């Protein structure tokens, strides 16, 4: 299935969970947050929540700013 991760389209296997997504794309483990379809998903449920087809996933962290 196709998803959009941080603005780019990617093909991933059906049933992929959010914690698997983080590993597949080598995303940082700490200091990050994830939103799927504009809803923040707490880290505590990444392991049990599947990425939805056509989901828009955003993974963010702190940068210099302000």
């Amino acid at each position, binding site marked *: 299935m196709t998803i959009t991760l941080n603005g780019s389209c990617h093909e991933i296997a059906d049933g992929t969970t959010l914690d698997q997504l983080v590993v597949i794309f080598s995303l940082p483990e700490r200091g990050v947050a994830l939103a799927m379809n504009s809803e923040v998903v707490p880290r505590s449920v990444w392991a049990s929540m599947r990425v939805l087809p056509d989901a828009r996933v955003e993974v963010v*962290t702190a940068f*210099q700013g*302000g």
Partner: protein
Amino acid sequence: MTVTDMSSVAPVVSSVPDPFVIAGQELSSRLLLGTGGASSLTTLDSAVRASGSALVTVAIRRVSLTAGDSVLAVLNRAGVRLLPNTAGCYTARDAVLTAKLAREALGTTWVKLEVIADDITLLPDAVELLDAAERLVDDGFTVLPYTNDDPVLARRLADLGCAAIMPLGSPIGSGLGIRNPHAIEMICDAVDVPVVLDAGIGTASDATLAMELGCDAVLIASAVTRAENPAAMATAMKHAVLAGRLARTAGRIPVRRFARASSPTEAVIQG
């Protein structure tokens, strides 16, 4: 005779209790530092340490897959508290989502709320700002809104439950200083929460003026990070904020129309 050097400034200040408190949290400095604009993390590190700031802003952006040492690592080593911002948001909806992501990523409920109207002026959009502030306060955030130099809007934000009010001196990154000092004074009178002058500071005298006008603190980013020598400017700003605060609380002389001699006017020789 004892020679007084600059190192005596800090003890003199600390001997008089003058705590700076936001939302029940005492902060050890009235200078808040923004991290945007620093040319490198090494430069940022030296500026943060030189500033003495205890509260430092960061932006929230998409993870870069090629990131090296992160700003988080630098700031954690410096031991400062993080204040994530919602810079780049044009709507209340985006600002609220960004604040929630920041809370999840950084484990803090504090947020510098920015909702801007356009990328030319970077001025706050008052309507979206009020909407976002209300939603975030209701969700348990400690909200520090970047706002216009408008006393009425400041009062509305304070009434909503914002923990501090952060009016601009002039547009972000402009270095134009405080263009409407009277409005800043009125904001200080209008709200009971701390007022933090945010945006527009160009040099040390601007920061001092903010404190003399009655602001409780100053937030500075570009004036430090984009200075030729950021660490030196950070040091200057630290002293400028201390000077302004002391001057504000010391009780300045009234302004007079004509001179008032400071030497005795009697027993003057008759040549």
